[in-house]
């Protein structure tokens, strides 16, 4: 392992960190909570601001994934209920998130004339209940692979783009609308150009639908040119990749980034290390929200400078465990799990 670069004794890689926790209805991330601590943290923030052009500031954001509006089937006989409950959970968070990121498969595909548009409208209707106005989305294959993303663009805007928020550069990547699981050469060229203006110290959050690494290729849990994407991101010190598609939590530590998958809001898939078959986990009428969820993200410098970075090192699995075993009860009393 190489020597980490420091600024006045503070480790830059460790300074900006994303800490994520599963809520049982998504994922919450907190960015750079150490900034508020002052001392070396404040010095580091100032230095990063000088280098990156914007000083990082603490904030939180939520990841929601795979709502599959319109899906009907035995693994999810309650339709959009988990999505609607997730909206309630997010709205009752004690700290209002700055952003909500949707990592694909907002809708379930259909070729019935007019029906996919109706599902996109229904998605927008439910999402409009979020008290968080800044909502960003990337498509999943069920949204965009059959028509090259035409409907998605009409409803939600471009399928890949970038924006900045409080010192963090967010990149939305589309690895679905070409039909095959790939980003494609045009988008790779765009990514290189987009990142060219940033120094290696810039904290970057990539959000996309499919994993950018070979998680389980025989289940189509991969991106054909994911390695090329990661090569473009390689010079950057703080890269976090958030994705969906696999309908379950997963943490993968790559050589240059940490990759986090969020639960879905319909049904769960099994552990990829386990069975040979990719079959949805069966619906449990006693625990109707079991295995589904969202992710809340806290970003920014943390309480201790050495424990604060745009890297999801601290996924609080206790929340995940509770959501897995007590999903329904937990979602009925979201404030109790957030205290």
């Amino acid at each position, binding site marked *: 392992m190489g020597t980490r670069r420091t600024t006045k004794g503070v480790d830059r890689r460790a300074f900006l960190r994303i800490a994520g926790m599963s809520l049982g209805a998504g994922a919450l991330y907190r960015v750079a909570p150490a900034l508020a601590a002052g001392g070396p943290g404040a010095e580091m923030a100032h230095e990063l601001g000088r280098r990156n052009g914007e000083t990082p500031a603490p904030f939180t954001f939520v990841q929601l994934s795979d709502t599959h509006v319109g899906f009907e089937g035995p693994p999810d006989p309650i339709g959009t209920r988990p999505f609607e409950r997730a909206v309630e959970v997010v709205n009752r968070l004690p700290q209002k998130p700055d952003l909500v990121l949707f990592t694909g498969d907002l809708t379930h*595909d259909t070729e019935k004339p007019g029906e996919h548009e109706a599902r996109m409208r229904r998605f927008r209707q439910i999402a409009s209940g979020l008290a968080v106005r800044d909502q960003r989305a990337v498509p999943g294959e069920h949204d965009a692979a*059959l028509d090259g993303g035409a409907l998605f663009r009409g409803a939600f805007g471009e399928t890949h783009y970038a924006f900045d928020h409080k010192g963090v550069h967010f990149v939305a990547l589309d690895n679905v609308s070409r*039909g*095959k699981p790939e980003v494609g050469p045009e988008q790779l060229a765009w990514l290189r150009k987009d990142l060219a203006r940033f120094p290696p110290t810039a904290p970057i959050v990539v959000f996309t639908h499919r994993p950018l690494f070979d998680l389980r290729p*025989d289940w189509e849990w991969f991106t054909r040119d994911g390695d090329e994407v990661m090569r473009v991101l390689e010079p950057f010190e703080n890269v976090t990749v958030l994705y969906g598609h696999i309908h379950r939590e997963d943490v993968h530590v790559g050589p240059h980034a940490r990759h986090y998958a969020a639960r879905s809001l319909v049904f769960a898939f099994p552990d990829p290390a386990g069975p*040979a078959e990719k079959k949805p986990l069966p619906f449990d009428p006693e625990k109707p929200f079991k295995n589904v969820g969202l992710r809340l993200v806290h970003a920014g410098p943390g309480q201790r400078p050495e424990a604060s970075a745009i890297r999801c090192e601290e996924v609080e699995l206790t929340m995940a465990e509770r959501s897995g075993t007590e999903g329904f009860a937990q979602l009925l009393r979201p404030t109790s799990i957030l205290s």
Partner: protein
Amino acid sequence: MTASLRIGSIALLVALLAPASPPAQEPRVVEIRARRFEFTPNVVTLRKDEPVVLRLRTDDFTHGLYMKELGIDSEFAPGKAVDVPLTPRKAGRYSVICDHFCGSGHGNMKMTIVVE
């Protein structure tokens, strides 16, 4: 006659007199047809180190055929067969998927290649 010309003439003579090498054997062609959301046949058995050509056809939609370990990464559309040359080097059972999204049942569209 220069030395180089002599050598060239001898080489030509040897080539003309040499017994004709047997024609290279054409690789076996294995037809695979795809339609939403299945492959036919669903299981193909190949011999290790035997060169074959997988001939891919579809009538309904663009499909993919993907198996990284075997080096299969192809896409084929209605109206045009696509040939995939393949010489499997390792015995085993390989799960091969359609990796071009083709609708709601796409996630389970797969077949098996058995290499003996």
